[in-house]
């Protein structure tokens, strides 16, 4: 009796398939992107194949993420806030605060003692505090995005980056380079700026232990360390931060199923359309 969750984020599409014992049978990550929308179905197919299942065997499919709205093969659409909360709580039963740093947005989520979403906050309508911010600057610096975290950790101090507007920050980085600042110190400064932004945002909710950082940002060790510096204590990260939303979606699907809720309509195995 397997359950699937699909998280269609701004840059990556993630799928997790669980069995009825809540054991992960398979997971898969693929790109989203404007030209890759049809790949959502492909990522789904790949995951099912990995799990050794057929599409029809799935008991419940929940879609989440910003592309969740029009997923023809989903039985329910649930926001990523609820799904991240469910997924993180599953992995970290003592979690009370979640910081999710995604490609296009960041979120703070507060959980109550039962693991339900008590409150949440989302980033402003700009790239500051998101993966996109680091991505743009990494291109400016000619550094792989995946190397940014380690580079920040190798820095001897950090250069203050005051502009959080991505375009202005890009200019500021160029100016700092021209002044002779070290690349590692600049990168560390960028991580400090992002950490400051997302932690301040989450403080609106009141930060309580345990704190879990998830989303693509959690794969960046430099960013996680900067966040720990801001909150003042160690934080946790999932073993695979990309898939916590999809994991949560699969768990939510199982929750529905356990409550006797069954798919209301026939699933259409079609490509995802983002906008109706």
């Amino acid at each position: 009796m397997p359950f699937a969750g699909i998280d269609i984020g701004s840059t990556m599409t993630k799928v997790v398939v669980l069995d009825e014992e809540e054991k992960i049978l398979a997971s898969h990550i693929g790109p989203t992107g404007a030209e890759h929308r049809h790949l959502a179905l492909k990522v789904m197919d790949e995951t099912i194949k990995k799990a050794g299942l057929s599409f029809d065997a799935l008991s419940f499919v929940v879609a989440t993420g910003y592309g969740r709205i029009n997923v023809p093969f989903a039985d329910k659409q649930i926001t990523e806030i609820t799904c991240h909360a469910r997924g993180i709580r599953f992995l970290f039963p003592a979690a009370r605060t979640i910081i999710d740093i995604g490609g296009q947005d960041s979120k703070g989520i507060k959980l109550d003692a039962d693991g339900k979403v008590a409150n949440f906050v989302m980033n402003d309508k700009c790239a500051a505090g998101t993966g996109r911010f680091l991505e743009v600057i990494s291109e400016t610096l000619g550094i792989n995005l995946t190397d940014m975290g380690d580079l920040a950790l190798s820095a001897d101090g950090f250069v203050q980056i005051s502009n959080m507007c991505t375009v202005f920050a890009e200019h500021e980085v160029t100016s700092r380079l021209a002044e002779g600042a070290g690349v590692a110190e600049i990168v560390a400064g960028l991580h400090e700026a992002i950490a400051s932004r997302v932690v301040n945002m989450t403080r609106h909710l009141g930060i309580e232990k345990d704190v879990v950082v998830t989303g693509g940002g959690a794969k960046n060790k430099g960013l996680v360390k900067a966040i720990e510096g801001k909150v003042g204590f160690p934080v946790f990260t999932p073993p695979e931060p990309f898939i916590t939303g999809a994991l949560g979606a699969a768990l939510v699907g199982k929750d529905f199923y356990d409550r006797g809720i069954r798919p209301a309509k026939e699933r259409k195995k079609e490509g995802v359309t983002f906008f109706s």
Partner: protein
Amino acid sequence: MEQAQQAKTTAVKGTDTAREVRALVKNIYRSAHEAKANGQKVAYMMVASQYDEILRAMDVVPLPTENYAGLCAAKRDMDRFLLKAEADGYSQVLCSYARIGLGFDSLRKDLGHIPEGSPDGGMPVPDMMLGSSAVCDPRFKWYQAASRYLEVPTYGIDVVAPPPQDDLNAVRDYYIQYQRDQLKGLIGFLEAQTGKKMDPDRLWEAIRLGDKAWQLWYDIDRLRVAIPCPMPSQDHFSIMVAGHYYSGTQIAVDFYQKLYDEVKYKVDHKIGVIPDEKHRILYGGGLPPWHTLWIFNYFESFGAVFVIENVYRGYDPVEVPSHVKDPVDFLAWRAFLRFTRYHEKARARSGNPIVEKLLDMIADYKIDGVVFHACRSCRATTIGQTHMKSELGKYSDLPMMQLVSDMVDLRDYSEAQWKAQIGAFIEALEARGK
């Protein structure tokens, strides 16, 4: 957790009486044009300035510039005015109401006539401008800036309230005396502009009508404690026109009486805004998103109804002591009592009068969740909103959400982000077992 968008949400919705507000709004600008044609004095004015009845008593026709900005936004015809003000050097962080007003005045001056196609015929050149410090600082400076485009006299009135920690018995006399002096200064200015003395009997009559209208408005809101709620916030944002732009007139009294009767009928017959009211929401504060009022229908599509608001009906009826025999004294007393309504409660608990007011609303209206609207360019309602939300969270564990945009500037609004937030908020409400 499950968010089920209801298929149809148009079954009941708002009141019939609220639909008559559109005619009231049109009449504001038509009356101003007619008054100009007849040689009657017209004044730019601002809501909550505590001088409404004085204008009515002195036959000065009010021309509410803030309302005009909201009207432009509701008609989605604000960009040309915003851009004109910004081209004149006004920052995008300045109050967008003021930017629309200044842009309109600037454009009208450049063109030599009212900009073509302006909503409701546009605003005529006033004979005077009556600024106010009530609510926020741009309202005190806006008309001063508008003097760049208009060669008409400006008068600014200070409207004051003590901080909540003050002992009201110790400061009352001082505040009332100061407010009285401010109002008398305004009356002197109006007498000079109109060439006639203010008639105290006419002022008493305007006060009587103003208080009657606001009492009825309060009574209507009290009816909204009913489950299901008989009147949504969308109506509230319309019907405030009578209380703020017709205060001191029989028109406002008749309007609210009619609305009261309709809402009472709905309560008696258990007719709600939507057939299946699942969540009762408090609009916790901030000016409404005039550009996107349909967003409230979007909430309703999930069974969530906004049942009461912390905006516009800014004060409950108050009882001015019977020894007050002068109408200007009465207005000063009334202002003081209105503004200090929650001070004693605040001193006893949270220290914040608005938090106390919200807590009362949460209890009285059986609220399930609170939504705030942070308007980027409205310092008065947005600065401190996050703090207030946090303070409220110390006394209430309800789900709360802060949407961010602006009251009229669409450039600060993101539909995708709002829908994402609203979806999560609805799921949080559902998760609480409602």
